[in-house]
């Protein structure tokens, strides 16, 4: 029982990192129908920008904010000047996946070319831990949880209670219809990509903190978990992505109790497949259903 609770603590930390990452990933998909394989590399790039900040004496949490802003801006630019032109030329859904794979290669190895193949790290306090029953958290982990939850709540507030958020949902549901009803679709898409980039950038730094190191393959390694969380919730479903993050994050940690360590990562993915076999469109099926993907 102790072990279950103790692992739950770490599961919550992992889930808190997956939260903004999966929200960001799914926002991009819902806004432009692009499955962005380069998302992980964008996270890593932002994490390295965070590293540059901390090594120039910027405080860790300000660095996280700056990395988020950097992520938002690069994400916006990438969509505007790389992905959108391809979409306009009529590149297919799968063609776009290949573009984002190429993007991921370019980003990842640019990072390696600049910062080298070896990992860097943020200045972390190696101080005390806070105990909550069998769970224990370092100060940084508590802040990570706080940021993850805050970003999820902010997304919720934005989508529910603001005009912009409603417009985003409208564009996600049916872009031509939204445009016809006077929603400035391009601006909304820009905003969605900027937001998702911010989420990804923040998640990148949070991952670097949680892992105690930042390596150039880090984001790509987490990408599968991000995709799993997003798909579990129903691709394009922001609330689904939130639920998916929590489920995948906690499962990743808890399953290691039952299975030996090396097999543990598999369980979360096995759950994903089983859930999809029962509910083929993920836990939250909705507008995504309308966005049938044509080859």
């Amino acid at each position, binding site marked *: 029982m102790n072990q279950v609770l103790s692992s739950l603590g770490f599961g919550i930390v992992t889930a808190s990192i997956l939260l903004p990452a999966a929200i960001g990933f799914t926002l991009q998909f819902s806004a432009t129908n692009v499955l962005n394989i380069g998302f992980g590399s964008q996270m890593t790039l932002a994490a390295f920008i965070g590293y540059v900040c901390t090594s120039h004496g910027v405080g860790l949490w300000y660095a996280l904010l700056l990395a988020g802003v950097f992520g938002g801006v690069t994400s916006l630019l990438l969509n505007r000047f790389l992905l959108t032109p391809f979409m306009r030329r009529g590149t297919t859904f799968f063609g776009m996946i290949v573009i984002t794979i190429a993007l991921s290669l370019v980003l990842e190895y640019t990072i390696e070319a600049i910062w080298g193949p070896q990992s860097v790290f943020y200045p*972390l306090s190696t101080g005390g831990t806070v105990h909550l029953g069998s769970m224990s958290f370092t100060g940084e982990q508590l802040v990570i949880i706080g940021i993850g939850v805050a970003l999820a709540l902010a997304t919720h507030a934005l989508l529910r209670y603001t005009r912009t958020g409603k417009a985003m949902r409208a564009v996600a549901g049916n872009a031509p219809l939204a445009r016809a009803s006077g929603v400035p679709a391009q601006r909304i898409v820009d905003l969605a990509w900027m937001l998702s980039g911010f989420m990804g950038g923040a998640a990148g730094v949070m991952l670097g903190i949680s892992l105690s190191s930042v390596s150039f393959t880090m984001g790509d390694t987490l990408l599968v978990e991000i995709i799993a969380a997003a798909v579990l919730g129903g691709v394009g479903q922001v609330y689904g992505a939130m639920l998916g993050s929590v489920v995948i994050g906690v499962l990743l940690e808890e399953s*290691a109790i039952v299975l030996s360590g090396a097999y543990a990562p598999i369980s979360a993915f096995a759950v994903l497949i089983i859930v999809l076999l029962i509910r083929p469109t993920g836990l939250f099926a909705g507008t995504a259903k309308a966005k049938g993907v044509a080859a």
Partner: protein
Amino acid sequence: MVSVGALPGASAATKKASGSTLNIVSFVPFSGPDASFGDLALSGCYPAVYAVNSAGGVMGHKLACTTADTRGDPVDAVPAANALLAHASNVAAIFGPSSDEVLSTQPLLEKAKIPTFLMAGLSQYDYQTDPYYWRLTPADAAEGVAMAAWAKEHGYTRAAAVFATGTTSQGDGPASINGFKALGGKIVANVSLTPGQPSYNTEVSQVVNAHPQVIFFTAPADTSATFFAELHQLNNGVVPPTLVTEVAEEPGWINAVSGAIGLPTLEKQFAAMEAATPPESIPGWVAFHHALYASPKKVPNVGQYVDDPFTLSYYDAGILVALAMDQTHSAKPAVFNQAILGLSTPGAGKVVVHTYAAGAAAIAKGKKVAFIGASGNLYINKHHNVAGAFAAVSEGTNPHRIALVSAKLMAKAAA
């Protein structure tokens, strides 16, 4: 025996290099999880090449360090090996391959008939018979055995074995476990880490709950950082004494783990089991040290490599290859390879030298030469392996030897 020349460039810098450049190719991973092996091979190559070239080159040739990236992938390494062989005419020696790609490239490299200085620690090369294969560092399994012996020597009876899944760990993990059991110790937790996970808390809990007195550990830098950060967290800031291997002396590993648990803890609780390097006062090491810093080409964090057994032995290998060319008057690997063993072994009537310049000068005067370089006497056996002593080396930015590992206990643990 007479000792000649202690500093490089002291003599014989009169030759003029006019021939083509001969390459020492570092055939190891330069990308992927084991990318640090690349710098490790180069860290020995650069000073060796500098020492030879600053003495006027060898047989009218300049030496150069080139690289072939195996990406740490046995499949990708095969075309890389083919590329190396396609340009083989000016290759004097190969530094590598590592355990990642040694088996898949063996059929190709065997045919190349070029002196190949293995980085691979796999046990199947302990008694190898290929005349062109050399391994001047101990097998991976010996590192595991050294862990067991060191733990026993310090009175530990309960150990946790924590090894990442991967090629290197497949060698030293079982050796440490079996060795410790053979010495009467108990393995209270046996945990494997899959690299690339967001957390290792369950594995950490297993270790913490088993209350080990000592941890046997090998994993890549980022996996290690995450593991020890969580161990530090879940064990109330206490990291038990931990025995690691040479990998953990590389700058990337030290940066990552000291970032996770703090440099003081790392320096206090960790010890790396390495092939024992000689005292820093022997003339061969002094000459190496000079060349390491004087060379215009350096690996990053060059200071971390001054006592690394791989760096030292690769420097020695580079010098031995050059001296072998001088002695046989040939730049052909098939001719000079056979001279390497004799050059590394002191004996009656041989002049002991500690630098390339002194060796080349002595050979030019028709003397028989033995080269004792940075590693001291290598004692290369007929299987082209070395069976040197092991030492525990401290971790941190300024590594130093803690003590030698008991050879007697190691023999017992390996039995």
